[in-house]
């Protein structure tokens, strides 16, 4: 696609080109500095228009976990299904928990990852998802009670990653932990869950 974008640069920035044309424009801009500059300028103006919009209305106090109609929601469903077995369940979360979950899920969706189930007491379920390159680690625990800390073992030394968040399931997302040999949940000085990731 070597044709210059011309007026389509502005129409693209406004979302008025069809998906096929939009793909052509992105591909063209990867190699054409002039058209890229024109698109960037048009997007800056479109962003200025966006700043005039009111915020999306506030969420209700508790909200259901988002609709399972896209790939990210599918990643979310995977995370919670492998963890708790409540596939497609309506998880009540606060907006803050939702934001934390969104961050974690976006990492999960963009990475090659594995997951390991930790041994844990009956009635609880603890899963750890981890990027194969050690870029992140995501602990999801159901039914372990409040206040548990995630502890990892690296090169024979234990490192406390901090407490899991509130709610049930409780979660903790850690960026750049590196690869670890063991993951544990520790509550009141006692190891309540243990597993060994396999990278």
């Amino acid at each position, binding site marked *: 696609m070597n044709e210059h974008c011309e007026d389509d640069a502005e*129409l693209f920035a406004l979302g008025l080109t069809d998906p096929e044309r939009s793909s052509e424009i992105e591909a063209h801009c990867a190699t054409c500095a002039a058209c890229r500059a024109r698109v960037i300028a048009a997007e800056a103006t479109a962003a200025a*228009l966006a*700043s005039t*919009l009111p915020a*999306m209305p506030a969420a209700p106090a508790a909200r259901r976990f988002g609709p399972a109609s896209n790939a990210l929601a599918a990643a979310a469903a995977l995370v919670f299904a492998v963890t708790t077995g409540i596939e497609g369940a309506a998880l009540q979360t606060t907006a803050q928990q939702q934001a934390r979950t969104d961050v974690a899920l976006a990492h999960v969706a*963009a990475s090659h990852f594995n997951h390991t189930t930790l041994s844990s007491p009956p009635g609880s379920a603890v899963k750890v998802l981890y990027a194969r390159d050690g870029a992140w680690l995501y602990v999801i625990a159901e039914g372990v009670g409040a206040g548990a800390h995630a502890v990892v073992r690296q090169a024979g030394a234990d490192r406390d990653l901090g407490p899991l968040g509130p709610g049930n399931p409780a979660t903790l997302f850690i*960026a750049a932990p590196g690869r670890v040999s063991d993951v544990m949940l520790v509550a009141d000085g006692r190891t309540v869950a243990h597993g060994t990731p396999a990278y």
Partner: protein
Amino acid sequence: MAFEGAGFEHAYRAYAGRLRAVAYHVLGDRAAAEDAVQSALLRVWSSRTYQAERGPLLPFLIACVRREALDIVRGSQRRNERERRFAVVPVVPDPTAALDPIEAQRVRAALERLTAVQRDVIVRAYYGGSTLSEIAQALDAPLGTIKSRLAEALRRLGAELSGGFS
């Protein structure tokens, strides 16, 4: 890679409000807007198309989210809802209700400096959510004319916002 590690987390936290506002403006539904934002971000992240030379991240993401939302509108029964919502003549929103009231006032003032024809086509396309064909029909003008008029109007608005036309 701009999206790795904490960079993404920071971007998401910083921009989610803006992106949701853009999607909600088009879709008029909280769940659908959230869906559009997540789909757009996922597309960007998973395709890894964004590089620093592509320009500032926020305007790039805003454009991606608006395209995603408009694609949803075009491809679904939401179109009927949208036509109902946008049935009234669109106007520039009240700047005091904007996410960024100061910038909104500046944009509104810049829009006022456009010609009436340029302002009309931007308001119809951006705030009214009309397609190019709908605008062409409403103004009884050829599609090509509307395309070039809108593109020129946006360039002119950009020039006004960045300090004026020489």
